[in-house]
């Protein structure tokens, strides 16, 4: 048991190192020249070349990577060629917005998804079940940016109930968090229903009923707790990937988070920023997987990691 956790912790720096190399290399595989993009369409070749040498992109790949690694060890992710700010500072400025939006949407998705899933399982095969499942499939298949634009037009432009752009007040969270919660709540609802259905036909549930427990107690204490394991795994995975930035939602709502920063960085081949955000995402995925393992251990003491 202790070995398992030790191995896991020791693997983290190695994973980060490999990831840093892959990211560094992959970013440079992207077609498109950052120096040309910065100098613009109307610049001549001489200016493009001098911009390239200023950005240090004329150095051999190995040297560039060495410089990157050395700086990384000092906590320096490099400087953005767009904003001229240190990437770490840029990320620190944007990450709270993404974290807040993701947390709100996930709370929403988990609440709506599990409730809907549990009820669909209880009323399996009946109208409520079909209703929930049709809604869930629609929620998972609909293009959420399209729905977001419709909602913005109605609630922000016509009715003026909520602000249209940015993250200025709590009202700014309403539309983007619903948009972002749509897909995960549908996934959670389906997962939760399947998982619950599996469990409510088990012997121990029948036993629980037979010993006279109330329906609510049976479902919540006995069934849901056991159904949680696959749900937690799914939620964890989704949460981690969204923390890297909900790219489309942030773009549509002009949300000042990491997702939009990433889109702009890719557009301008801002290598340092792309590397920084991707590396952060890797770290988050590792951390969340870790947390999921711990949580599953707590929910189901039978699960042991050896």
């Amino acid at each position: 048991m202790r070995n398992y956790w030790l191995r896991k912790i020791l693997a983290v720096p190695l994973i980060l190192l490999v990831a840093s190399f892959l990211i560094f290399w992959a970013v440079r595989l992207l077609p498109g020249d950052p120096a040309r993009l910065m100098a613009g369409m109307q610049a001549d070749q001489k200016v493009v070349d001098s911009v390239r040498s200023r950005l240090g992109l004329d150095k051999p790949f190995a040297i560039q990577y060495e410089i990157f690694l050395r700086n990384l060890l000092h906590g320096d992710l490099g400087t953005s060629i767009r904003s001229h700010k240190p990437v770490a500072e840029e990320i620190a400025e944007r990450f709270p917005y993404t974290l807040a939006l993701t947390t709100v949407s996930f709370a929403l998705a988990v609440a709506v998804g599990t409730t809907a899933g549990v009820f669909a399982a209880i009323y399996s095969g009946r109208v409520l079940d079909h209703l929930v499942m049709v809604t869930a499939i629609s929620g998972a298949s609909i293009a959420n940016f399209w729905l977001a634009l419709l909602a913005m037009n109605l609630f922000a432009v016509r009715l003026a109930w909520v602000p249209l752009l940015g993250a200025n007040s709590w009202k700014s969270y309403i539309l983007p968090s619903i948009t972002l919660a749509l897909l995960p709540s549908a996934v959670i609802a389906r997962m939760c229903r399947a998982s619950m259905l599996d469990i409510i036909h088990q012997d121990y549930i029948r036993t629980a009923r037979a010993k006279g427990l109330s329906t609510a107690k049976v479902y919540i204490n006995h069934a849901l707790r056991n159904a949680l394991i696959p749900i937690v795994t799914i939620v964890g995975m989704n949460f981690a990937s969204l923390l890297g930035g909900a790219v489309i939602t942030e773009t549509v709502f002009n949300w000042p988070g990491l997702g939009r920063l990433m889109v702009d960085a890719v557009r301008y081949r801002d290598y340092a920023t792309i590397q920084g955000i991707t590396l952060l995402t890797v770290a988050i995925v590792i951390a969340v997987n870790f947390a999921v393992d711990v949580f599953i251990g707590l929910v189901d003491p039978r699960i042991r990691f050896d």
Partner: protein
Amino acid sequence: MDPADHTASFTMDVLDPMYESLTRFDQNLEVSPSLATKWSVDSSGTKWTLELRKGVVFHDGTPFDAQAVVDSFNRMLDPERGLAGASRVRTIVKRVTAAGPGTVVFTLSSSYASFPRVLAVTPIVSPLADKGGQLSRRATGTGPYKFVEWKTGEYVLEERNEQYWGPRPAVKQLKWIWTSEPVLMNMSVLAGEADIINPLPPIFAEALSRNPKVRLIEGSEARVFWVALNTQRKPLDDIRVRQALNYATDRKALVRTQLRGFGTPASSPLAPADFAYDPQTRGYPYDLARAKTLLAEAGYSNGFALKIAVQEPDVDLVEALQGMWANVRVNLQIDGMEHGVFSQTIFGSPKQKAEQGIDCVFASWASDNTDPDYQLAPLYRSNQWSPSGANLGFYANPHLDLLLESAAAELDGEKRKALYRQAQQIISDDAPHVLLYYARDIAAQHTGTIPMPVRLLPGGRVELETKN
């Protein structure tokens, strides 16, 4: 925030209220005084002497004087600095010297008639801020607005400069918000969250023009859209083929469908906003029979295939062209590219373009100082073949080269115009491009806001009229 270290015209929008140049454009796009009050040129056309405005102070308290101008230009001339927006100044200017506290002398590498127009788009920065390396994050000029805050990708905040030397603007604070989604801009002006949006795509302009909440601001037609034809590759090396494609293009239909009427079919390589634009230039009327005859003469009556490089958002437009050229059996294969890939591809050398099979490129060009030299030389001179310049189809005509060179140097306005008249006709006849149309610059203003005079500079930059 350093006006010499970027090239996006919409970044200049944001910087414009905070900086000033030695000259500026007036309502009629003529050059008028700004930080320089008057100027003169010697007979050789290479020595320009400017008298500077007195009593002007940069936002950081540094006095504006001849030394500040010298420093501001020297950093652009320094190749070590590698400033992204310095290429034009570096080509033209040889030396800048102070001849007293209120006088500067520019020595040019050769006579350049439109030098005052170049000065109008070259903002002067505080030498102190530049030395401290603060300009990249904090704009420091002499303009009517001062820098307050920049949150990357979110907004830039500016407030009125109460120490401004000229009349102070009515609006106290400016906030610039950036979005990559035109549909968001459209909604934000309707919701009144934005007072002004720029640029406005024609499709939204058409709808907004009927909305009482919004007033359209229409600028000049300064941007020329074209398809550059690779003159070094078969079959486009044949002038008859290039002319045939020109005849096969229904420009009126493009203006109607793609620009919703906010533009004009192109006949000259210069735009109407340009003082040397000659509307009499003979272009190519839509004439399918003529196109077919020319192709038959060239031996291509059965047609051929061409590959065109285009940015993703412009694919629709090129599809219209594809339909038109199919009428003369030209099969246009569209290679839609993401912005970064596109800019790398189109600046490929002749060899690279041959390897990638790029026959043509759809793009546009606007001369931000409405000077014909900056509209024609980079696109058509033989020393500007990509990647050195923007002659993307590797066109070469020695006679035109000489003509453009003497036109750039000619100090007599009328003689200069006559030279450009000839150049426009030569380019039209040689058909290195299929010239498509001139797009009008459009922005929109919410009618509920404080009336603030706004105008669009050629190329689509919005200028708040604050500098008198």
